[in-house]
């Protein structure tokens, strides 16, 4: 554990989805997904636009309810928890960081307040998180005037401060330049070495290669494969994944 994190009692992982579907407007957008996500590894969710990647992340994080099927946190600490309580053990970083109209520091202390951290501890923990991601000098700056890369790192620092067991990221670097992308990727490294499970969608195959331990490939709302990363990039099992990796359009 980096940063001297006290080990958490028990884990909520693995996360298990069983025949999970999500429909809207008469269309099935996520189609009978069965998936198990274990602790610590970095899972990259790949697939063409509209494959249902973002929806899958939101279903896992509990922001939307599946139309059918079950989502279970099967770890010892996850049993019996649901809704907001189980979400307390998770964090999510969105494509466009949603930051409150307050200082960088207060964005982080707000998240800690939502976790029920006593206010005496909030400031110190928030500062530690900002420092961890090279943002300490911006602590008093209004979050909304930070650059795109700084904003996304602030979103990561906010997630870090809440000490999640699992971190969902939905295309966190798709709006960033290479330097800022590198900043986000090294932040992810910190989460990984602290033992946080990472589940991330990306468009960037290079990024997927750099980060992934395993790849979940999604097309038209269905999981076509869940494969260790090396294997996926060398010999993808499905024809669709092969086409995707070759940069072809998948219809």
């Amino acid at each position, binding site marked *: 554990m980096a940063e001297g994190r006290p080990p958490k009692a028990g884990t909520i992982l693995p996360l298990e989805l069983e025949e999970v579907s999500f429909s809207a407007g008469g269309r099935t957008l996520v189609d009978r997904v069965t998936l198990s996500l274990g602790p610590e590894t970095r899972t990259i969710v790949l697939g063409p636009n509209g494959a249902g990647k973002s929806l899958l992340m939101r279903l896992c994080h509990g922001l939307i309810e599946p139309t059918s099927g079950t989502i279970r946190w099967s770890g010892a600490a996850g049993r019996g928890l649901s809704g*907001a309580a189980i*979400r307390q053990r998770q964090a*999510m970083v*969105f494509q466009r960081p949603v930051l*409150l*109209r307050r200082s960088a520091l207060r964005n982080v202390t707000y*998240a800690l307040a*939502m*976790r029920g951290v006593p206010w005496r501890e909030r400031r110190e923990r928030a500062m530690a998180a900002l420092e961890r991601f090279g943002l300490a000098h911006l602590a008093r700056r209004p979050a*909304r005037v930070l650059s795109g890369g700084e904003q996304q790192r602030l979103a990561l620092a906010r997630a870090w401060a809440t000490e999640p067991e699992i971190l969902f990221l939905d295309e966190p670097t798709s709006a960033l330049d290479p330097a800022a992308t590198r900043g986000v990727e090294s932040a992810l490294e910190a989460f990984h070495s602290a033992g946080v499970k990472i589940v991330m969608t990306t468009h960037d195959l290079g990024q997927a290669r750099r980060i992934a331990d395993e790849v979940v490939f999604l097309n038209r709302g269905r999981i076509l494969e869940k494969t260790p990363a090396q294997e996926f990039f060398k010999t993808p099992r499905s024809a669709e994944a092969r086409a995707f990796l070759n940069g072809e359009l998948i219809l």
Partner: protein
Amino acid sequence: MEFSAAFRTALALILELDPTLLEIVQLSLSVSLSAVAIAALIGLPLGAAVALGRFPGRGAVIVLLNASMGLPPVVVGLVVYLALSRAGPLGEFGLLFTPRAMVVAQTILVLPIIAALSRQVVEDLWGEYAEQLRSLGAGRLRAIPTLLWDGRFSLLTAILAGFGRASAEVGAIIVVGGNIAGVTRTMTTAIALETSRGDLALALGLGIVLITLVALINAGAYLAGEVARQHAAAAP
């Protein structure tokens, strides 16, 4: 001719610091500002609650709020008059023809404006924040103060709109206040009185003083908002 006389009158009133004028100005401001303060205290959380609430009849409540922005002041005055008059349900408090009655009437006029506008502001903000706040663990109830704070600069405009309504209206306060000199005479009721007496220059002079005051207060609020915005730098 009427206008140049009016400006001369206005200037003279201001320069002389006419005690009667000062009294009227002071009463006008204290009534309108009190009404706005009370309406904001109720209207901001009410608007936010309607924005985030999920309850049957929500659409009807929104329509009602929006429509109430256009309540005719004189009708509100009449209703408050009936409620506060000796025979009315609130007659025992003896508020009729006092500044407090005027505050009550103006609060009723201003409340829907602040509530309806803040409902819109908060709802738009919620659209942007909802997923993130839920992810952080803030439910709808907890989101209300968060969104009110984050929408503070837009909400200032809603409050100023309410103040504009209060400071400009005459219909409600003349009915419940009675335009009694030294007790319930305000800028607008005095203007109405002087107009009916035929002293148009004095009426217009008072009007100029009123408009100047309202402009100054708005300018002050704008500046305060800008300073806070640069300091806290709100977003686009």
